[in-house]
């Protein structure tokens, strides 16, 4: 009380504003810009999320039976697995849809394997996780058609993805046994979800970083690579000069040395 009266007194004396006023002003400013930003980004978001209560409860049962050992009964995470609050339906669909979850073993990176659940079961778990906290949802079909601008997609791919996934999507090594997987034959939906959620060692490419249209372009480029066989013949794994060098030494020079032996052979 005394403090207040003294400040009041000082205010009257100096005729200045309350010292907390500037703080309040900054708070209001931050809140409004942040709110506007959040509003704008949510309007630019490309996901569709519709889930029934039944689906959510089915998902919860599946989660409790198959995922809770590591992620905890409430999906809040344990020392063996991260919390799943806010990871969204997209993350669940990607991780379970590509067979990475449930993990075969704890290692540097979850390996891709045949999915362990039906799509209906995966959708249920996704609905349950999405119901816990808001997060990226399943992408809209219109971004996944693969008929957008492949040239722009190629350029975005080279700038954003090629340093780990290789320029032809053949995959590459990361540190400590982690790796960026090859992208051949990956479903458009999973590519989109991976960009939005940043699974395992991959960074998140949010909608402000790569807009949904950009993501659709990248998907179109990858689909182009998938659908169009290498024009120059067999691609040797798209691994570049290493496989080319091995090939010429083993098969090229090998064949020719065979010929030299044949030419100089004398009849016995």
């Amino acid at each position, binding site marked *: 009380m005394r403090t207040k009266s003294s400040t009041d007194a000082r205010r009257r004396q100096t005729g200045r504003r309350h010292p907390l006023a500037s703080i309040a002003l900054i708070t209001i400013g931050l809140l409004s810009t942040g709110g506007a930003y959040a509003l704008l980004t949510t309007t630019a978001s490309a996901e569709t999320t519709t889930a029934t209560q039944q689906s959510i409860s089915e998902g919860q049962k599946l989660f409790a039976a198959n995922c809770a050992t590591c992620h905890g009964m409430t999906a809040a995470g344990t020392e063996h697995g991260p919390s799943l609050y806010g990871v969204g339906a997209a993350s669940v669909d990607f991780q379970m849809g590509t067979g990475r979850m449930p993990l075969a073993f704890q290692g*540097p990176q979850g390996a891709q394997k045949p999915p362990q659940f039906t799509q209906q079961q995966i959708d249920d778990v996704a609905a349950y996780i999405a119901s816990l906290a808001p997060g990226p949802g399943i992408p809209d079909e219109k971004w996944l058609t693969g008929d957008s601008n*492949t*040239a722009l*997609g*190629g*350029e975005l791919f*080279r*700038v954003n993805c*090629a*340093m*780990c*996934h*290789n*320029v*032809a999507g*053949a*995959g*590459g*090594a*990361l*540190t*400590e*046994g982690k*790796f*960026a997987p090859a992208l051949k034959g990956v479903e458009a939906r999973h590519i989109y979800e991976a960009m939005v959620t940043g699974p395992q060692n991959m960074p998140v490419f949010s909608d402000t970083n790569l807009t949904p249209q950009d993501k659709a372009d990248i998907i179109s*480029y990858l689909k*182009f*690579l998938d659908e169009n066989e*290498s*024009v*120059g*013949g*067999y*691609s*040797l794994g*798209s*691994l*570049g*000069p*290493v496989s*080319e*060098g*091995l*090939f*010429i*030494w083993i*098969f*090229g*020079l090998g*064949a*020719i*040395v065979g*010929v*030299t*032996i044949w*030419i*100089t*052979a*004398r009849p016995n």
Partner: protein
Amino acid sequence: MTTAQETTTAPSRGSRFTSAAANYLDERTSISGITKELGRKIFPDHWSFMLGEVALYSFVAILLSGTFLTFFFEPTMTQVHYDGSYVPLKGIQMSAAYASTLDISFDIRGGLLMRQVHHWAALLFVAAIGLHMLRVFFNGSFRKPRELNWVIGFTLFILAMAEGFTGYSLPDDLLSGNGLRIIDGMVKGIPVIGTWISYLLFGGEFPGEVIVPRLYSLHILLVPAILVAALGLHLLLMVINKHTQYAGPGRTNENVVGVPIMPNFAAKAGGFFFVVFGVIVLISSFFTINPIWNYGPYDPSPISAGTQPDWYIGFLDGALRLVPPGLEFVLWGHTWSFNILIPMIVVGIFIVAVVLYPFLEAWITGDKREHHITERPRNAPTRTAIGAAGVTFYAVLWAAAASDILATHFHLTIEAVTHSLQALLIVGPIIAYFVAKRSCLALQKKDREIALHGYESGRMIRLPGGEYHEVHKELSDYERWRLVDYLDYKPLMVRPDARGRISPMQRVRAAFSRWFFEDRISPATRAELESGKEHH
């Protein structure tokens, strides 16, 4: 029979024309002397003597396909917007060099095949040179009088790599641009003058706009001109020095046993040219090489995972990948990049050692004789061991260039791959040296045993006394020759010179000689062979 008689009695019109034309040429050029010499050059029949030819023929394939490519390639870095047939690059901004390479690949008939022929032939060219060099090394075919031809051949190897690298960079795609960036980094790593050289090379800050036309001049003009000249000299010296041959009955240091060039060998070699060309075209038709359309135009910001140079530059890239961290520091206002200098120095020493090896060995052995009989690798254990160590060293550096691909494809961590290769780079050559040396000595022992006592025939006989005995099958004289006809060196004895002193140089040389020849298996002598015969 009848035709032969006819031609001797009345030459046909065709042969009359041939002899008239030959006479016309000879009267004006005196070419018959050269033809006589060349036409009677003798080639011994052994497959390993044809590896140099493979290199020569792939070089011809490179020249032919390269000429085709120059018709359509635009060596400028002028920026254009691509408007060709490859959809995923339509409208993208790129250099004219890259755009014209895309046009060669997609819009010019036969262009992609020619590009692939050019590139595959280049890889084969350097690989064939490498194998040819290994043959010459392990056979001791670099000894007097062929030391100079070894140096010329080595120069050809370096020039081939220079050709390869300049060509690799021309399309101005992302992969080759990354390669150039590494070269730029290596140049800038040279203290004091590095930055200046880099600016000179690129005409300003990397990548600039002049590097492609400059590399183009080097690639199609300067380097090929030197290469062809060195190649001519290499072949000329081969004719002058005559061909080496393996030891065998009737083969001495003074003769060459084989077939003359004319007519059979020329026909065979001509056919072989088409076989090599055919293999290259077949590979080029079925297997992609350097799919530049995947890589996209060069732009300094992106880089692709799995970026590697072509195989023959791999050992340099590997050397850079194996350098441990923390070797860069600032001193006297300059950055000292020992992470770049150390690999450059180590690889430089390796290269100089390879080129000087014939002279080093000649100095150590003190052998001033001419050698026209190739040695079997086992009969020169120390040289073979040194070669094995060198090959291992090179191979580890080479593997290191693919460390990331080794990691992903064998499910290893890249750190484990790098550390293993670092250790192998030191330990590998040492192990290879001892394994090779001991193997050579063991093989020599076995040869000596066979020369003295013949092969084990597997036929057991029982003597009247009850003793069992295996019959040894004796070698024919022809077979034995191969096993006993080799040079037996002994370590150099240190002897005082005229003034009664022993120079330190003499001591060093004696020590090297001891290292070379201390462990040796002498060939079976005549007396031993005679007594061996009596036994069986």
